[in-house]
């Protein structure tokens, strides 16, 4: 049940992002102070503007999807407004709402990071999904699940690592990583039967995060693994990966 397990892991990682979604029972209101704001029929910049809310109008903020907020005005007209426009409206006390679409500053101040990567682990195809939490601007904790598929065996690996980035404000942010975990190796069924085995692993690595746009970032990394087998010699393996991630 490899696929099922990994899917659950991913769902688990995704649901970790949900605290940010919980709540929001009270309807938030805001007042237009710019000359006007445009309301569109659907959340997207290609959709037509069908209504313009004027200065002084109060609008109710209903829900948000990506960078668009659904609003309702006093005439019960509902439409979608870009979050940057909503960010320039004010609340009851007259302060701006301070909402904006994710940008490089949000990247520097990110909390959660989720992504998946593709590459080569010891000359076999490898894919992985990971989730990380940035608990200081420089340090993050990450959990990573990797599967690799070789000609002679498949492997699954679960590991945790500490990731240190030197330049959190930079668009190109290099990092070092140190971790450990467990690896399971399953020899191919076409080979003479050998047993599955599970070994401890330790890893050290370095990489680069590159902020792309919105919530997206590109991630390149190299990790060097030591697999602590119960044979005479430990195995060593190198892993190159490229991945795409989103932050929250």
């Amino acid at each position, binding site marked *: *049940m*490899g*696929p*099922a397990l*990994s*899917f659950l892991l*991913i*769902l688990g990682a*995704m649901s970790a*992002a949900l605290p*940010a*979604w919980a*709540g*929001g*029972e*009270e309807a*938030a209101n*805001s007042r237009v102070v710019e000359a006007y704001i445009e309301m569109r*029929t*659907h*959340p*997207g*910049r*290609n*959709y037509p503007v069908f209504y313009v809310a004027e200065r002084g109008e109060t609008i109710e*903020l*209903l*829900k*948000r*999807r*990506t*960078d*668009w*907020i*659904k609003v309702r005005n006093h005439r019960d007209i509902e439409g979608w407004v870009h979050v940057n426009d909503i960010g320039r409206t004010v609340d009851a*006390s*007259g*302060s*701006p*709402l*301070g*909402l904006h679409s994710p940008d490089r500053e949000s990247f520097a101040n990110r909390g959660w990071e*989720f992504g*998946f990567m593709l590459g080569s682990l010891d000359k076999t*195809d490898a*894919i992985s*999904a990971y989730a990380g939490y940035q608990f200081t601007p420089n340090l993050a904790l990450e959990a990573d699940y990797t*599967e*690799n*598929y070789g000609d002679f065996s*498949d492997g699954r690996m679960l590991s945790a690592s500490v990731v240190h980035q030197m330049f959190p404000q930079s668009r190109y942010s290099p990092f070092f990583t140190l971790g450990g975990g467990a690896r399971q190796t*399953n020899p*191919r*069924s*076409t080979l003479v039967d050998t047993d599955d085995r599970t070994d401890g692993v330790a890893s050290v690595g370095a990489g680069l995060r590159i902020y792309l*746009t*919105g*919530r*997206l970032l590109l991630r390149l990394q190299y990790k060097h693994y030591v697999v602590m087998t119960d044979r005479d010699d430990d195995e060593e393996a190198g892993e190159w990966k490229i991945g795409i991630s*989103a932050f929250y």
Partner: protein
Amino acid sequence: MENRHKRFLLGIAAALLAAGATAQDVVQVIEPEVERREIITPDIDTENFELGFFVGMISIDDFASEPVYGVRGAWHLSENWFFEANLGAAEVDLTSYEKISGGAPLFKDSERDYNFYNLNVGWNLLPGEIYFSENRAFKSDLYLLGGVGATDFLGDTWFTATFGIGYRLLVNDWIAWRLDVRDHIFDRDSFGEDETTHNVEWSTGVTFFF
């Protein structure tokens, strides 16, 4: 003379300044106790996740086309990009060879389960609207997908690449109908030598945004 004039003018200037200063003392100065305004970001319900199921047919290389079903979840990052995860299952019958030869089956029943998962990046290539009536328009997206995953089949797990195109029609803000065509590509050596297989999935499903 000049000096005296200067002194006189300076004297007046000094007197005026002093008067100004005393006048300022009388003026009520606003106490600098302004309450600090904190920018409170309102809690707005976000609906960036999509979860649902799909059913369809998958044509499995060397076997027949079989029903496939599974669950599908997505995280919308922007109006253009989303991440998607799928988990699906199908089951195959005998290969054509097994049927014709009438010999002993090549695989155990448990090895005939076709289970897969994949992680994709999706791009909403053609966001649009379709019009049902004068006042009713529904949001739709035509999207492209590419990703990687694994397939459990014939006793082994195979590294799988997926490519697809799909169509999502939002019935209201949070219920969507989806139509997808995806190719699951993987190399397997279950019949002795390495071969690349294309397994095309046609599916439809319903998803919910939350």
